[in-house]
Each structure stands twice: as C-alpha cells, then as structure tokens.
C-alpha cells in the first residue's frame, strides 16, 4: 500500500441488517491494516441525526497512529437500500420491527478536524450507502469492504494538544452528544468501568478484632508509663562523686575537701598511735576513690596529739587477747583491732584495707607499745 497524503480521509460504515447485528460494514484502510475495528465500533455511542452537527472524536494512540473520527447516523429507507423507487420513504426494520441505524463518516490521521466540510461527509455517506446496498442484498454472504482514501476539504490542525491515554476520547466539537463532562473520569468509548468485587475480608482479619483496640490502648498506656518512669528516675536520681583522699590531711582540709565534693563529714573518736601525726586524718571510710551518691556521709579518724592515760588495772587480771599469729615479725596484723583497751600494746601490722575501729585505713600504719 502506498503512503497516503496527510489530509486524506477514509470513509467507514457501522450498521446492522434485518438479521445481522451491528458490525463494521465498510472499514477504513488504516483501521483494517491495524485490525482495530473494535475501537471504531465503540466510538459510535448513539444516534446523531443528519441535521445535527457531526461528532468529531480523536482516538490515540492507536496501533496505526492517531485517528480522528467524524460521523453521523441515518435510518436507512428502502430507497437507500435500492430496493424501491421514489415515493414515501419506507424505513428499513430489523426482524423485531426496530428501525435500522447506520453510522457513517470518515477517519483521518495526523490531526484533529476543527471544521467539517459537508462535502466530505456527503462523499462518505455515498460510499457507506454503496456498501450498505451490497450488505442488504445478502447479509449472510456479505464480507466487510475496505475503503480507500479521498482528499478532504475539512479543516484539520496538527496533533491535538495535551497527553491522552490509550483509546481516550480526547477532543470533540462543541455541542456533540455524549462528550465527557468536565471533572468526570474519562472512560474509553464502549468500555464500562469495572464493577467492584465486594469480597469479605479474610477470616483472620476478624479473629482478634474485639480485643485489638483495648489491647492496643493498654499497651500504649504501659509504654507511656514506662517511658515516664524512666525519665523521672533519670531526672531525679542523685549524682555520684568520688570520695577524696583524706588520710594524712589536716582535719580542716579534709572537711573542706568533703564539702567541696558535696559529701557529709562525720568524725569518729580520735585515736593515738605512736607514729601518727597529731591532728591529721589517719583513717577514712569509704576509702578514697569509691563512687558514692552526693550528700552521703564519709567517716574519718583523726590522730590524737598524745597518748591517752591508761585506766587502772582491774582487780582480777584478765589475759589480753592474743594477737593473730603473724607470719613474720614486722608484718602487718590483718584485722587487728585498735581501741582503748589495746592502747599501749605493740602492734606490728598494716591498716591498709583493714578495719580499724570499724573504719578502713587508707594507708599502712605501724604502732608500737
């Protein structure tokens, strides 16, 4: 087939007969080549009387390219079918007694018809009626003809503006019937929006529905309470500080150190030993470096300036408790108690990490009788 000129039209005819239903009776060559007659059949959505403006519809994209369709309808008479002569027109009827309706017109490619020349439609009508006469003569044996191009006089502009979907009615002349109303979804001609399949949801959806909302609410409340509690605890929990080294410090400095660290100072009864320096701290608890809460109490022991007087001996002598056996002379006597009753006794041993009157010593300490 040779390439057709851009401004050519191809006539077409959609119609039915006494027995045969609606179908393409004359197919435009581009439509036949693209095997796209169904789209053209779907374009015809109602009667357009011959005294009314023709319908102009643009279909795109089609397999053979964009198509502009122009059509009207007629109710053929016996004279149109060539079966009777002049006189009062006798309408042709189908088997049920209903009037036949033929949709005739032309299609063109590459643009949209903006003004229809009636001569173009007259030629298409003539071609359509020729085809209809052949069809009417023998409906059962008729095979649809294929139309060839003819030059159009109608005004055609280039490609219609704006995108369009497959098979969408994109443009139509004002006043034509069944134009898609503004705001309405555009449905391809001849197609009906699908029905919604109203299926019940799966049974699992309902299984725990009854308990789901309260369970979700309870869970959310628990989560919020937990978060709030954590926040409150983090906000109000006391700050930890390290216990400063007090041993060997003068008592006044030791108390200041403790106050600076936010700790409470608690002096314990003073003690005397032979080698301690009077007025200085000889022991503390907790030991230096321990992490304790701010405001906690730190106890300390201060060295006495001189040896306290020995109380008079009791009337019945009581043997002094023995010191634990030392592994070697001069080694520390671990766990040895130093209190008033022991004062004056020679004690060899280290205090470090041991309890002295309930207080842990911070350093090695030697005492002698």
């Amino acid at each position, binding site marked *: 087939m040779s390439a057709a000129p851009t401004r050519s039209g191809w006539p077409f005819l959609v119609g039915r007969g006494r*027995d*045969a*239903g609606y179908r393409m009776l004359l197919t435009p060559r581009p439509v036949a080549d693209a095997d796209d007659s169904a789209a053209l059949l779907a374009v015809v959505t109602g009667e357009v009387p011959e005294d009314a403006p023709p319908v102009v519809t643009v279909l795109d994209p089609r397999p053979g390219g964009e198509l502009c369709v122009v059509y009207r309808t007629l109710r053929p008479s016996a004279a149109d079918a060539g079966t009777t002569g002049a006189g009062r027109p006798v309408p042709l009827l189908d088997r049920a007694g209903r009037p036949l309706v033929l949709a005739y017109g032309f299609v063109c490619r590459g643009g949209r018809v903006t003004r229809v020349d009636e001569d173009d439609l007259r030629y298409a009508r003539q071609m359509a009626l020729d085809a209809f006469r052949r069809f009417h003569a023998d409906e059962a044996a008729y095979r649809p003809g294929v139309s060839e191009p003819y030059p159009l006089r109608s005004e055609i502009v280039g490609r219609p503006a704006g995108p369009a979907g497959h098979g969408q009615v994109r443009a139509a002349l004002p006043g034509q019937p069944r134009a898609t109303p503004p705001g309405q979804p555009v449905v391809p001609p001849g197609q009906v929006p699908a029905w919604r399949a109203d299926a019940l949801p799966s049974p699992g959806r309902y299984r725990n529905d009854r308990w789901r909302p309260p369970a979700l609410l309870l869970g959310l409340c628990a989560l919020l309470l937990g978060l709030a509690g954590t926040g409150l605890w983090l906000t109000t929990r006391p700050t930890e500080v390290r216990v400063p080294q007090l041993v060997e410090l003068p008592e006044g400095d030791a108390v200041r150190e403790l106050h600076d660290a936010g700790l409470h100072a608690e002096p314990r009864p003073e003690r005397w030993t032979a080698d301690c320096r009077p007025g200085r701290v000889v022991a503390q608890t907790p030991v230096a470096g321990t992490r304790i809460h701010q405001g906690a109490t730190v106890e300390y022991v201060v060295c006495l300036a001189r040896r306290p007087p020995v109380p008079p001996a009791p009337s019945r002598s009581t043997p002094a408790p023995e010191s634990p056996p030392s592994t070697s002379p001069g080694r520390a006597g671990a766990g040895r108690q130093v209190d008033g009753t022991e004062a004056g006794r020679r004690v060899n041993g280290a205090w470090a990490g041991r309890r002295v009157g309930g207080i842990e010593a911070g350093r090695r300490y030697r005492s002698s009788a």
Partner: protein
Amino acid sequence: MQPIGILLLLAVVTTGVVLVVRLLRHRRARPAPAGAGRPSTIDVTAELPTFNIIALGAQETGKTVLLASMFHRLSTELREGGFRLVTGLEQAADLTDLYATLRDPGDAWPPGTMIGQTRSFSFDCVGTAGGRDHAVLRFNYLDYAGELVGGGRAASVPVHGRQVSQQDLEQRLDAAHAIFGIIDGRRMVDALRGGRDGQLYLENTIVPMIVLMRRAECPVHFVLTKWDLFDTVGADEDEENDRLELARKELLSYPPIRNLVEQRRRTHKIVRLIPVSAIGRQFATMTEDGHMVKLPHGRLRPVNVELPLCAVLPDLFAQVSAKLDAAVERKIAEESRALSRLSLTETMSAVGRFLARPTGQAVRLAADLAVGRNVFSEQIVGTFLDWIGEPFEAKAREVAQAIDDAHRSADQIRLARQAVLEEFRENMVVLRRQLPASDLTTWGVR
C-alpha cells in the same frame, strides 16, 4: 537533673498531648449521634450494599426496553410506602427518553443497542420510614449490545471486539449477584407453534447464554419477554399459569436448559421463569410479515417488569440460608434481633464482630458455598442479617420498643431497609402463588 531524662519526659508529654488532641478531633469528626442534632445529617449512602445484575441475552430480545420499562415502573412506588428507584440525571434522562419513544404510538420502536452504548446503570433503592426517604441499597445493571453474546446466525459473522467484550462480561459474571437470562418471547411463541425459526433460536441462539449461566454461582433467572404475545398461545389455556407451563415445558425439553436447571436444583439453587412484557397487552400487534407494530391508540401497561429485580435479594439470601444448618440459622436470627436494636452505623461495626464469631463464620462459609466468595461484602452481610430475622411486623414492633430518641433516625433507615426487603419477599410470594410454573426448580422461595 539528667538531660536525657528531661528529653524523655518531654517526648512522653508531647506524645500524650498529640494523642489527646487527635482523639478529640476524631470524636469531633465522627457523625453526631442520631437525635443529638437533626437526623437528616446521617448519610449512609457511601456504605450502601451493592448488588450487581447482568441481563444476558442475544440481540432483539428486548433487554434495553425491559430496563427502561422497569425503571419507569419502579421510579414511583408500586404501593403506598413502598420502595422506588433513583439514578443519576444523565442515566435517568436516557431511560426516560427511551421509554417515551416506546410509549408513543406514532413513533417507531427504539432501535437496537449499539456496541458503543454498553453501560452499567446504577439504581439506588429508596425506602420510606418516618415520613422520609432513605437510600437503603444499590443495584448495578449492565446493559449491552446483544451482539456481544452472540449465538445463532449472529455468531456466524465475526463481530469486532467481541472477544475483548466477552472477557469483560465474564469478569463481571464473577462479581454478579444475579443473572437474568433474557429469552425472546416472540421466538418462543414461534417455537411453541412449531416454527423452525423459534426452534433454531432455542437450540442455538441461547446456547452461549446458557454456557455463561452455568458458570455462575449466584441466582440465575430466565426472563421471558414479550409476554403479551402469549395470549394467543394455547387456545385451551385460559389461565396465565397454564400458558407459562407450556413455555416451561418447551424450555425444559431442550437439554442445555434442562441440564442447567437440574444442576442448580441439585445444589439447592433457584431458577425462575419470570414472564414480563415491557409494553403490556393491547399496545401492539404482529403483522403478517412478523413485525410488531404499535396500535394507534394503544396504552402502555407493562407486566411484571419489576419482578426480576425484586427476586434478586430474596433468592440470593435464600440460596445462602439453604447452606445453613437450622440450628445455626436460629442462632443467627437471635443475633440479628440483637443487632436490630442498634443504629445502622453501629450495626456495621457489629457486623465485623459477628463475622468473627462462629455464627458469622457459618454465614461466611455458606455464602462462599452458595454464591462464591467474591460477591458478599460486609454491607450485604448486614442486609442478610436483617432479612433472616423474624417477620417484618414482629421485628418492627420489637425495634419500636427498643429504639430510643437518640437513635431514632438511624433506626428509621433500618426500618426502611427492612420494609424494602419485605416488599421484595412479598412480591416473590405473590409470584409463586399466582404463577407456580415460574419456579423451574422444586425448591422455592422461603
């Protein structure tokens, strides 16, 4: 104070505030309880139970004319306080124009439906309660060119797009709640008189339709059009039911139809034969060449055109309840009575809970077995529960006692729906009583 603790507290407080605000907004956005304001503010149309209907039939059987006549008949109440159909302005105008053409004695018959004119009409079924109208359910009705189904001589010539359209039709069949097999009364009369054309029609033309109907799980009915032509059939048969009996026997003498009815009878499914006439008697007559012509002063008096639509819900629900054990059905009826104390909006959430219970599971299973899982929605289950309860009068009394002022409007909608269901049921009872031959199976309506 720890920074991370402060941040956590802030986050919790913010979350709490947001949740409270959202809750308050949600409560404000909810529809006000009936009675709290004007009852007219309640809108349940978005949740209407929707029933899809397909009228299958070859060309020239009168599908579109039946549709126009049915709409005209049901666009006003059949009886005082009954239901009526409403549709969109454009669709109403199309159907009214068609009906006007039909009833004008000086005008030609409406031409056949073109392939491009295939449309799905939506009709809202409006009931009345408390002096007000309420849309209670919706019908989708597919109207298409008979060429797409084919059969007979039409099938011998290829129709472009038939394959695509038939695929679409088959998908719709899966979502349908009722299928009407339209039988051309004119050719049926010819067959009853021994005419070759009529016999060929029954043998060949309706076969594709029967094939599609056999696939369907939902109720299927034969609608015998042009019933006015049967007045001249069977000179000895004065009674309408006797003439219908003749048509029934003729139909069942054809294996495809007989097998379809037997298949559905075995599975406790309903098949009706409903005679209708879109124009009625004494409006048109048949000429010698077989054409129907309008009488000069004929007056349109449609016959039974409303019945196919009225049969949809009772037969659908009867098909489901046939799968239910009697004890389970009693239990469902009890639960249905409990639901009837609720407003319609409350019912919708209650239906979800009902479906989670064993009785609800039984309904689901019965629906799956009886009509296929794709056609029952929660809204339809709600309608089914209304239908399966006690007779309307008793229920209405009970509801009247139960409702309080706060829920009056919502329950009016429910009462309107129950009234519509009852009218459907009554129509089927009357049909069965007046035309027993209309039940092609031995198993009938509840």
